[in-house]
């Protein structure tokens, strides 16, 4: 059998990611998308059958896991049912020591892949990457999405501030990741138009573009500097023009 080994090898010290899809194009597209935010992370596509058809391949999944495993863990994200079955079967066939550090996460494939990739790139351990992928489950569940231009909930205490997005492409993947990374270093909770500033998917799902004004707010009495720091980052244009 022709075994197509993905062209990656595990990145030392970092959790690797495997994307399993019935479609080779979807899996490869996910690698492309996630690599934008995780250029230094081992990402492997395991899509389609061995003969290039629609389906999943045990051998491709097994090869992908081996390719991204550097010893600290592998997170596998799957699309429809049989992709999960194939991934679970591939996991069963691994050596005991390897199997323990391979986790199959049931999460939305695209959102989970992006969230997991950002966490892995930041050096998160296996548990952190798994948790990031799972956080994608509720990313789009918010029913009453606040409008983009203001409309944020009243903040009784604390501090809020409006800033306008100035960089050309808005809060797309890379700037959003940078924004979330900073929000995660701050001690107080900050919201963007009412959504958690630490949620990459929450931020990205707002589709904020150049010219949009966003409301950064905190209910914490000590949150002013955190809001100002995030506002400063947005106003800096993330190094873009």
């Amino acid at each position, binding site marked *: 059998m022709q075994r197509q080994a993905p062209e990656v090898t595990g990145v030392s010290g970092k959790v690797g990611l495997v994307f399993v899809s019935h479609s080779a194009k979807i899996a490869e597209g996910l690698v492309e998308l996630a690599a934008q935010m995780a250029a230094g992370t081992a990402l492997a596509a395991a899509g389609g059958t061995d003969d290039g058809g629609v*389906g999943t391949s045990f051998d491709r999944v097994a090869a992908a896991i081996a390719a991204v495993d550097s010893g600290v863990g592998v997170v596998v994200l799957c699309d429809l049912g049989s992709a999960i*079955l194939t991934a679970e*079967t591939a996991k*069963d066939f691994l050596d005991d020591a390897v199997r323990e550090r391979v986790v199959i996460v049931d999460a939305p494939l695209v959102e989970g892949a992006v969230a997991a990739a950002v966490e892995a790139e930041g050096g998160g351990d296996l548990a952190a990457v798994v948790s990031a992928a799972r956080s994608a489950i509720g990313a789009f569940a918010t029913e009453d999405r606040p409008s983009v231009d203001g409309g944020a909930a009243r903040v009784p205490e604390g501090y809020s501030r409006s800033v306008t997005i100035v960089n050309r492409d808005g809060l797309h993947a890379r700037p959003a990741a940078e924004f979330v990374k900073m929000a995660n270093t701050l001690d107080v909770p900050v919201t963007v138009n009412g959504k958690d500033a630490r949620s990459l998917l929450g931020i990205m799902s707002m589709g904020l573009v150049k010219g949009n004004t966003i409301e950064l707010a905190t209910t914490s009495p000590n949150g002013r500097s955190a809001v100002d720091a995030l506002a400063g980052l947005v106003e800096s244009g993330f190094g873009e023009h």
Partner: protein
Amino acid sequence: MTLNTDWAVRWIKGSAAVVSEHRVELITLDREIGDGDHGENLDRGFSAVLLKLDDLPTDATPGDALKMVATTLISTVGGAAGPLYGTAYLKAAGAIAGQAELDGAAVVALLTAARDGVVLRGKAAPGDKTMVDAWSPAVDAAAEALAAGLDEAAILDAAATAAEAGARATEPLVARKGRASYLGERAIGHRDPGAQSSALLLRVAADAAAGA
């Protein structure tokens, strides 16, 4: 009469033939409530199995033969049937490992392990409109036949008959697992392709024993 590796080989060759013969039927069933690849995937898998039969050592046990089927199906069937049947054959092989001759108790152990493998992998319960709806009654009927003192061929015949009834009984069900579960009530009136192929394979197992 106990069942040996010749029986296992007849079962495997018969499986390849029946899957090929019913390829279009299984594709049609799957197209109605799934993604339409079940017949083609199984046919591809068992064709690969057939080629590997020649490599089976002369001293291979029935368990060895079933293990070969398991690993081959897992790596050649591109749909859910690969992991599901692969796990079923793998667990079945494990249940009879090392035995050159299978008595009635071993046949029941084989079927039970296969059913448990399908349940383990697919996490489906009876009534979910899946392969489990064929395997579960098959195992129950086999255990009853063993308790009634029937021989291996009769045990397999009872299992196959129950599996066929179980497959037919999936028709009025709403699917709770697999691709068909997206269809909701539109799956009603269609037989589950996995349950149907399971019944076919078990009938071949019985036929192979009857000819022993």
